[in-house]
């Protein structure tokens, strides 16, 4: 059965079961990836995934059931199971099925160029090997391309479709010095025909070579600049603090703080669902997406809401309902969430800080931090900054602190905004940030 037939079967089962309020959320994603290593294409993968989530309201409670199996038996099963699941719900918040917004911003279709993925992967690999004799054949380039379709249909009359494409290339360079090896990667989340292979190879190889002879630093309090990618990673991990769902469940310290100063005056956070090339016309409930300022020059403006959390707070949704996967229940997440860049180039920041650490990599973000407490303690790497100049590579350190304190202590925000890899429905971006002083453990 294709989705149209499955949708009909589900709808019939739902009506037979006496359900009057229900919704189907369908996604179909295709992705192709090729990988080059040792001078040839070593891996090639092609994935198609189509899934459907049925949810229904029974006695004021919402139950979910999702499947990838589009058969008549499964249609009947998911309807019955979702109703059973609804009956198990104990929370008594109002539940919603959205009828539709007045208007939706139209999103330009982005035709994908017919870039030869294998040739691109081999080119990235080849340029990396050519960049330096220490580069190893275990260096690996990945090129991927995919499309996704989302369809949202419900008994309130909603019927929305959105299509998007995703293209990315990455290169992991491995270099050797004697018995030791070092590696570094670059990631390009952009149309494949725009990938500058020369620059990407130079950057990946350069980063790996910088790591040769890297050393730790003495433990203590250090002035720290986070490079844009590192700060975007940190921000991605802490973005749940802006969720009204987290706040209302007692899992965010920003609860009730609208109007308060929670960050330095140079800090402005924006969520922009219409960032060119990465547009989302509606959220996971079908509410029309819109741009919003979450923190304005340090002052906290608004949490991010979906319909349920907005109703609890007695206000309008911000259109941030999220479905990180077709089978997930509706949560809250931003779309393109970023720290607004400032005027200073990274070099200007290095000169301003004088002496300190530039953190370019953070690891253990899934474990060494806690958005409920704000605390973080993360393995890190980067460069010494001495006399305003970027110096030798630093590894074997941790950087620790509390994110809420860090936001207040930010000294300056750079001009080099860069977005990280997608996380669920979100892409998070940041420029380089002079973050004040943080605890560093090393030697």
């Amino acid at each position, binding site marked *: 059965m294709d989705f149209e037939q499955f949708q009909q079967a589900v709808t019939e089962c739902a009506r037979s079961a006496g359900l009057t309020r229900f919704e189907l959320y369908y996604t179909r994603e295709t992705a192709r990836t090729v990988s080059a290593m040792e001078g040839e294409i070593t891996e090639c993968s*092609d994935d*198609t995934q189509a899934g459907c989530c049925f949810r229904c309201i029974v006695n004021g409670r919402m139950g979910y059931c999702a499947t990838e199996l589009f058969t008549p038996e499964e249609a009947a099963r998911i309807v019955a199971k979702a109703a059973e699941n609804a009956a198990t719900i104990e929370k008594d918040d109002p539940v919603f099925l959205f009828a539709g917004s007045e208007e939706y911003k139209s999103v330009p279709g982005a035709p994908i160029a017919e870039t030869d993925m294998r040739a691109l992967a081999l080119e990235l690999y080849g340029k990396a090997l050519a960049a330096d004799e220490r580069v190893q054949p275990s260096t690996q380039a990945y090129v991927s391309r995919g499309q996704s379709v989302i369809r949202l249909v419900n008994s309130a009359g909603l019927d929305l479709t959105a299509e998007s494409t995703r293209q990315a290339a990455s290169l992991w360079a491995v270099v050797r010095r004697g018995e030791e090896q070092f590696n570094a990667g670059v990631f390009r989340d952009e149309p494949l025909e725009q990938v500058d292979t020369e620059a990407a190879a130079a950057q990946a190889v350069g980063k790996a070579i910088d790591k040769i002879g890297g050393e730790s630093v003495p433990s203590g309090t250090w002035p720290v600049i986070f490079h844009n990618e590192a700060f975007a990673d940190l921000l991605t991990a802490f973005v749940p603090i802006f969720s009204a769902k987290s706040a209302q469940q007692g899992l965010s310290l920003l609860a009730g703080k609208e109007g308060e100063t929670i960050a330095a005056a140079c800090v402005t956070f924006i969520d922009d669902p219409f960032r060119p090339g990465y547009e989302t016309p509606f959220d996971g409930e079908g509410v029309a997406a819109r741009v919003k300022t979450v923190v304005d020059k340090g002052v906290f403006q608004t949490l991010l809401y979906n319909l349920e959390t907005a109703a609890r707070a007695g206000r309008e949704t911000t259109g941030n309902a999220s479905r990180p996967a077709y089978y997930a229940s509706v949560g809250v997440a931003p779309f393109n969430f970023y720290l607004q860049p400032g005027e200073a180039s990274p070099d200007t920041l290095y000169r301003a800080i004088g002496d300190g650490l530039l953190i370019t990599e953070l690891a*253990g973000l899934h*474990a060494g931090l806690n958005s409920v407490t704000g605390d973080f303690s993360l*393995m890190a790497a980067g460069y010494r900054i001495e006399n305003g100049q970027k110096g030798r590579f630093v590894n074997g350190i941790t950087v620790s602190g509390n994110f809420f304190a860090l936001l207040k202590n930010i000294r300056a925000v750079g001009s080099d905004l860069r977005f990280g890899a997608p996380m669920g429905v979100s892409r998070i971006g940041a420029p380089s940030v002079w973050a004040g002083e943080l605890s560093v453990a090393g030697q």
Partner: protein
Amino acid sequence: MILDQTMLSELLGIGLSSGADFAEVFAENTRQGLMTLIGGKVEDVTDRTISGVGIRLLRGVRSVYASTSDLTRSGLLRCAREAAAAMGEAGEAAGVVLSERIFPNIHPIRRVTSGAANADQAAVLHLAYDGAGAVSGEIAQVQARLLSWDRNILIANSEGLLTEDRQVRTRLAVTAVASDGAQNQSGSCSPGMHAGMELFDAVDPAAVGRKAARQAVTMLHAGYCPAGKMTVAIENGFGGVIFHEACGHSLEATSVATGRSQFCGKLGQVIASEKVTAIDDGTQPNAWGSNNIDDEGRPTQRLTLIEKGVLKNYLVDRLGSRRMDMEPTGCGRREDYHFEPTSRMSNTYIAPGSDDNGEIIASMEYGLYAKSMGGGSVNPVTGEFNFAVNEGYMVRNGAIAEPVRGATLIGKGSEILMNIDRVGTCLDSAQGMCGSSSGSIPVNVGQPLIRVSSITVGGR
């Protein structure tokens, strides 16, 4: 069932016609359940059917993988033809003769969780929630989740193997938040087994809630851990994450086979202190990381990785075995049919030693006792790893002293393994989810109490 022997044989034949020297069909139907209780009420009940097929072709060390959730005849044929086209020219498709094999099931399941009434599952969550809340008035929030999997897999390959397996898992995950109005701290406890609802005959949900809550309250009143290099005693159970990150991943063919591991070429060499013997055992009955067979259809085994400090074995999957010219060890695993399998851990642990727990602590003039750990990560190329301590205590003059808030411990695997200078007698394991190129899979980590003479502690 559309995937009968005739269909499977046809799909494999299409794969081989491309010039591949090996073809495999992996089919999966998994029912995954998640029930969430927070604030004393069940707030979310979701259910998901994962259903699809992954077709893999190998030619030498080149691999092609095509996966689809479209299980119609045309969808399956399209998938096989796409894989064949990516590998080479589709030539004459010859059938493959399959011979069905049934492996012994050493993980009996008494009550499959997806068949248990929602009310039974909700009852477990309420017990956990109430247990946590009863610990202290400072507990501000408790989230309890019941996760279940009923995973049905089928593997057919061009060597003629046809086999199936059913894998049922259940896990209770509790997080408690303690608050004093200005600060939050949290604690968690998440036991699971390759088992059904009988998990709760062995595990008391209220006790799980209490454990999470006690950790949160202790941490609310704790100071921050200091920063710097120090001696650390790491408690048993999830303390095994240190071995998982410092060594385990770097022994997977995933990294070793392509020369991207700190432990390449070191079989037979000393890579750890003599006190360290470490094992990966996928056969422990009903353990979280166990399976009868891996996702390539090979029986799992108990494998000695390190014996008294000497590297004895790598973890080898089929593709890795081609590169490394070694026998596969039954460790080819994947999250689901969207992923190609690769070598992964199962139940990994440092074997019990002979040092006395009391003596281990008494031996420390100054250091950290890491009681409860969180996850971590590693770069196998350099061996740089990290893992989180969620609940720690300072040790002063040989005695456990004040609690301290979490810090990340970091090091280089090759160095830290040499620094393990005490290994206690009482082994315990704990459950985690491990991420790698073939997705997120359930694993156990374990060890007795151990002492690491020197490691960097990322406090403040």
